[in-house]
């Protein structure tokens, strides 16, 4: 079965920084805090985002899954499941121009600042 997707599997600088944070993936972090939930708190929101993008026609499910498969076997093959799905979705969205990399980097800084101030 060959994976048919036009997603560009070139590495994306912003996401590379996260890909390399293996000590911060949920499977590593959760046991350190005695957390037994197998999924990180953002997993449901991620699933809903995929449904929303499909529902609005901006990113059909089949396109996304094919691109996820291609990225999961290449760029993000060494990343655990929920983080890999998140990185792949963002990779696809950047690839399709649905969001901009510099905008995303700036928003990540703003979100972190907001969360840490709470």
């Amino acid at each position, binding site marked *: 079965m060959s994976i048919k997707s036009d997603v560009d599997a070139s590495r994306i600088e912003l996401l590379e920084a996260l890909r390399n944070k293996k000590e911060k993936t949920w499977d590593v972090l959760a046991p*350190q805090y*005695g957390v037994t939930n197998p999924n990180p708190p*953002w997993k449901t929101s991620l*699933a809903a*985002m995929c449904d*929303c993008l*499909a*529902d609005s026609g901006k990113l059909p499910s089949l396109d996304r*899954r094919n691109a996820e498969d291609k990225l999961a076997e290449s760029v993000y093959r060494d990343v655990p499941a929920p983080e890999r799905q998140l990185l792949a979705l963002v990779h696809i969205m950047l690839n399709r121009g649905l969001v901009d990399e510099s905008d995303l980097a700036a928003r*990540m800084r703003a979100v972190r600042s907001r969360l840490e101030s709470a």
Partner: protein
Amino acid sequence: MSHSHKPGESGADLPHAAPTVEEITDFEVLEIAVRELAIEHGLFTAEDHRRFTEWTESIGPAAGSRLVAKAWTDPAFKARVLDDAVKACKEIGIDWAEPTGFGTPSDYMNLRVLEDTPTLHHVIVCTLCSCYPRPLLGMSPEWYRTTNYRRRLVRWPRQVLAEFGLIIPPEVEVRVEDSNQKCRFMVMPMRPEGTDSWTEEQLAEIVTRDCMIGVALPRPGRTADVHPVHKARHPVQE
């Protein structure tokens, strides 16, 4: 009384499991950031996202378990399930039209329930992507979405089932049903021996998610799907 957990503490030594980790990871930040930008760019609305999140959190395999248990104890209901499963689902409170009125973009409102017999065992897969009867079974397990399972099940079904610990005798036909963009499938396993006097609630407890995918069989005493993780004998050396 609140208490905190620090990295390095053993979860087994603590009175309660912590609800979540006490640090903000870049992955959490990334999910929030991309969602906020998507909403600002008009890709979807915050209300859409809330609605799908609520729906995602409401689904799980318990609905499928109830459906099978009811079918085992009510022949007329079983006939309705096999005739029009989406319609029969409404009798146990599952409406495939939720949450939009037209279902979700990933769950086509066309379900077929596959009945196992003494000479026929079904197992489902989606070779194309990861189609799955989410309104009845919830989110698919990670292994169901792997290319490993999707590629190999259709070629070597007995071997793959054996890897789940399920040995199907040679005289029993194994039928792999490939989900697609137009149809969802779910397995109705055979009711096991030793359950004659059981209530629907008792029966539902042994109809686990894996039984409805077809990689396990229900039996008294088995009420959870557990997949041990085997460590690699020869791990990749960094």
